[in-house]
């Protein structure tokens, strides 16, 4: 019988909190993490809101200027190779390891792997390339590459934690950390690793967020209370966020043998491409529909068994519509009516971070016995007719939860999580 991956530790650095208790309170009470901001110090920009990561400051690309909340420690040897989202990741890892009851020495024997996801750091890369251009190639920060390119997370975390098992980074835009989580499940299911560290993280800087303004993907709504409203008729784009989330996955047998608390089981995952557009989702949500179908099949459950779906819905007009159609095809048309919400209404869209962050929220829902409501939803888009979008969080303990993610190029990934038996 294949090994069963389970989740034994979570760590959060998010717009809605940097510890389990605070994140849980925001999800239960539907309190968002948005603030009014001025990107590039330019009051003329239409985008006014971000899911800020409170207590962290990165005013320049020089780590000597960086600050983080005092409950976290970041080694001097480590920080020189980090981007801002690497600092978030270290802080999230510290929490996750503590929650799982693990110390660093237990990660070094080759039975633990590390899968990460981030888009790299445009903040650090821009500075590095500016210096090279200005000096016509004669100068460059020796740490410039490892702090900035996609892969910076796995380079740094693998070295810092002494990981000698599988190490890899995943780059599929907004489904990146969902891919990392899915393939981490496989490492355990195939018996290649007994434990996997999964980390998704993103910077939140002027350049990381405003890049999406060029695509007209960001909300221009200046009201933090309504700017991110997935599935609402008046939604007008997503709100950017950053941060990091870490999950500790272990073979269930290992977790039980060392007395770790199993928070949720990961019983299936799947993926499918849209085969349609480089940036836009398939208009009927074809890829996401197929990814959900494959995931349910992998988990050996039916649509009617799913109690809660954490939707990818980012609050863009086209993306939410595609997902609503995919959800209706998988659930409503089969007579199934799971609760559905997108927690991006509270956090904003974390890009590469999103899949891991929302898998962690699903884990909280299972382990703490509640379902996060569809925040900020006032006028559901008529396309959502037949979908159960609860306006408030519910004291219902879901047994089976589906987590959806979609990324550029029509890359769709889903997971099924189960309450431990």
């Amino acid at each position: 019988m294949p090994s069963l991956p389970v989740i034994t530790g979570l760590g959060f650095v998010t717009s809605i909190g940097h510890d389990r208790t605070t994140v849980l309170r925001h999800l239960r009470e539907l309190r968002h993490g948005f603030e009014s901001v001025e990107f590039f110090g330019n009051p003329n920009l239409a985008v006014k809101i971000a899911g800020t990561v409170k207590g962290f400051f990165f005013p320049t690309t020089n780590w000597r200027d960086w600050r983080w909340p005092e409950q976290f420690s970041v080694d001097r040897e480590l920080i020189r190779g980090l981007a801002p989202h690497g600092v978030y990741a270290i802080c999230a890892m510290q929490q996750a390891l503590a929650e799982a009851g693990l110390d660093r020495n237990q990660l070094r024997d080759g039975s633990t792997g590390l899968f990460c996801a981030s888009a790299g750091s445009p903040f650090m890369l821009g500075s590095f390339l500016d210096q090279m251009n200005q000096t016509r190639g004669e100068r460059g920060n020796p740490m410039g590459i490892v702090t900035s390119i996609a892969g910076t997370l796995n380079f740094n975390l693998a070295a810092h934690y002494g990981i000698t098992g599988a190490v890899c980074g995943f780059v599929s835009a907004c489904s990146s950390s969902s891919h990392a989580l899915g393939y981490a499940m496989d490492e355990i299911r195939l018996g290649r690793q007994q434990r996997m560290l999964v980390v998704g993280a993103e910077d939140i800087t002027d350049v990381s967020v405003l890049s999406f303004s060029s695509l007209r993907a960001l909300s221009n709504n200046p009201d933090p209370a309504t700017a991110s409203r997935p599935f609402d008729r008046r939604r007008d784009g997503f709100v950017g966020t950053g941060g990091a989330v870490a999950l500790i996955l272990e073979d269930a047998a290992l977790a039980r043998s060392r007395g770790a608390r199993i928070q949720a089981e990961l019983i299936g995952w799947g993926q499918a491409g849209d085969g349609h557009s480089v940036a836009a989702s398939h208009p009927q949500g074809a890829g996401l529909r197929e990814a959900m179908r494959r995931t349910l099949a992998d988990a050996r459950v039916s649509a009617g068994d799913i109690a809660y779906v954490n939707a990818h819905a980012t609050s863009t007009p086209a993306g939410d519509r595609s997902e609503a159609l995919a959800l209706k095809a998988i659930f409503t048309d089969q007579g199934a009516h799971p609760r559905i919400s997108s927690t991006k209404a509270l956090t904003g869209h974390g890009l590469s971070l999103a899949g891991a962050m929302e898998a962690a929220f699903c884990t909280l829902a299972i382990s703490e016995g509640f379902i996060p409501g569809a925040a900020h939803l006032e006028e559901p888009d008529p396309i959502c007719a037949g979908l159960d979008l609860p306006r408030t969080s519910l004291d219902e303990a879901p047994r089976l939860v589906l987590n959806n993610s979609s990324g550029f190029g029509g890359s769709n990934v889903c997971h099924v999580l189960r309450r431990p038996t």
Partner: protein
Amino acid sequence: MKPIDASAPSHSATTTEKEERIKHLPADARAAFHRFQHDRNPATLDPVIFAILQDFIPHEPARPFTEMPGTTQLIEELGFDSLAITEVVFFTEDLFGINITNDEIMQVRTLDDLRNFIHRKVAPPPPR
């Protein structure tokens, strides 16, 4: 990329860039650097060199550099790695407007090696 133009000048940091670079160093090191810029006396440089080492050393040293023997080894005893040494070299090149080759870096093993090397580089002895 384009064909070689031998007449192109090399990069050197401006005064403003140098001030920006030393802003994280302690006040006594900044003052020493300003004195050196005025009198070009290498004897004034040690506080600057030690401050640069302190700024890039991967692990906090057990005692100040000023209390260590000059024979203290940068890698084996102080825990510098190749990346940190490269950072020190690049910083030093920019600050003093000098060029340090990889072969020269390989010769520097101790605190005294580094001090003597930078002293020679920034104020070479007059030709005989």
